């Protein structure tokens, strides 16, 4: 397997920051999420993202779900993600990675709570693995509309991570939102040194509010429409900060300072869309 480090990395990757690899394996996670495992690795930290490029079509940000081998989990929601879903083992895939900042585990942390929704659950698996490696115990909370939306439950189990599933309709796990589940854990007296979230913004907004009330550190991975991914075009501004540069990970205090956090995001033109 190729691994882009050292001199090899410089020679293979530096042309404009793009690298091309082949898809080694595709896994169907549920009715709309597929995981793509590439035949290469990069050095990245949990929370960082890649700009995945389909020549002649588009380029979009994707969370790094594993750095070696490089892995993405993609929800089929529109033209770009559908095109990606059409790719199979042996097909080429191009990307710029790693980009953006990452989740940080505070020194001395013993127990952390991870809260995910949608493809964000996959991104947090990377964090759970790194935390475990450091001897920190993660507890995973998965929020979903219904049972079929839950992904990576088996992967967390394999890692030995306690996982709580919450579904809006009660078709899986406990009935309620991810935040309800977090509150239940806290009410039961569990203590966490830090909370982490990747998923729908209003879920993260609610978690940040809980964390503030509980005086618990909290880090969120924000999602905004991205253009260049390197901090020049200004498309991913969240109200005073570029998510591709200052983020995607913000601690809750920094997130609350962004004028548009929990309020709106913007399309490619820059028009505001309320969450």
């Amino acid at each position: 397997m190729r691994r882009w480090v050292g001199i090899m990395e410089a020679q293979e990757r530096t042309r404009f920051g793009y690298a091309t690899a082949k898809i080694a394996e595709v896994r169907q996670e549920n009715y709309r999420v597929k995981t793509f495992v590439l035949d290469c690795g990069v050095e990245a930290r949990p929370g960082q993202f890649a700009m995945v490029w389909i020549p002649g079509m588009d380029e979009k940000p994707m969370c790094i779900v594993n750095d070696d081998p490089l892995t993405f989990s993609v929800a089929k929601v529109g033209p770009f993600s559908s095109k990606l879903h059409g790719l199979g083992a042996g097909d080429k895939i191009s990307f710029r990675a790693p980009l953006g900042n990452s989740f940080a585990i505070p020194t001395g942390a013993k127990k952390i709570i991870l809260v995910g929704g949608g493809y964000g659950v996959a991104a947090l698996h990377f964090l759970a693995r790194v935390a475990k490696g450091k001897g920190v115990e993660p507890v995973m909370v998965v929020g979903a509309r219904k049972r079929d939306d839950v992904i990576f439950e088996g992967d967390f189990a394999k890692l030995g991570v306690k996982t709580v599933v919450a579904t809006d309709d009660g078709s899986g796990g406990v009935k309620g939102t991810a935040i309800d589940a977090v509150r239940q854990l806290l009410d039961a007296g569990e203590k966490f040194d830090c909370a982490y979230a990747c998923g729908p913004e209003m879920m993260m907004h609610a978690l940040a509010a809980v964390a503030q009330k509980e005086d618990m550190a909290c880090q969120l991975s924000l999602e905004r429409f991205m253009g260049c991914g390197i901090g020049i075009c200004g498309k991913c501004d969240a109200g005073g900060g570029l998510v591709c540069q200052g983020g995607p990970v913000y601690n809750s205090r920094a997130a609350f300072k962004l004028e548009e956090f929990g309020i709106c995001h913007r399309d490619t033109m820059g028009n505001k869309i309320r969450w």
Partner: protein
Amino acid sequence: MPGIDLSTNLLGAKLENPTVLASGILGTTGALMASVANEGGAGAITSKSASIKPRGGHPNPIVVDAIAEGGWMLNAVGLSNPGVEEKVEEIAHYRKLCGKPMIASVFASTAKEFGECAALIARAKPDAIELDESCPNVEGEFGALFCLNERDAAKAVEEARNSVPKSIPVFAKLSPSAPDIASIAAACVEAGADGITAVNTAGPGMAIDISRARPILANKAGGISGPALKPLAVRCVYDIYGKLEGKVPIIGTGGVANGADAIEMMMAGASAVGIGTAAYTRGMNVFREVCREMEELMEKNGYSKARELVGMAHG
């Protein structure tokens, strides 16, 4: 630095230093523009070019970064913007957050539309309006650039000048691809332009990914910016200043990345210095850093006022 005065004046707008955020870089939202001015230290801000109707621009990739490899960057953002009316609100928001001067950029596909768009943005009461007659990455759509011949360039200026209150200066932003940029600048001034911004990106150029054998930019071609553009920009500013005998202010833009570049641009004839790509390479604080470098270099060379550097290279 005591004894060094960086302040300058751009047709009535007081700039605490001559650095100006160039249009299209970080100029999307009011909050972002305000942080470039307040935290980054820019003397003034140019908003991203707005058109009458909203535009999505080109799909990604919209930027190729070869700054480290070759000193250049390509962009084909494709003038995405939420439309001039939204822009008026972003500017109002900027005004709430920041007291520094603001230049509002507009673009259009006909001279008449330049007039209409300028009239709409004038409602935001910007300190100046900049007419982007020179974006090279929408050529397929809009035909040849406005600013490549004197008649078209002047016509757009005339329409805009006639549609905007006299109290708001109008700048024409020109392309280094024009065969004789100084004559075009002269025609614009003749038609009523109060100032010139020179230059926009050059080219367009192209970069091909060799493992995919495809141009990287979705638009295939894109405007060249960054240090590789600087000698071209300095020559353009020098020519325009010479032709206009220093009578109208020039915002010298193109490849400026440090204090020495800024001084060079002013010596060529720029009253203020636009910085775009370097806000990426050096980060938002580039404005503050360029000012500090200017002060050091001015001190070392015995210059005390930035205003006195303007056109100094013209013997």
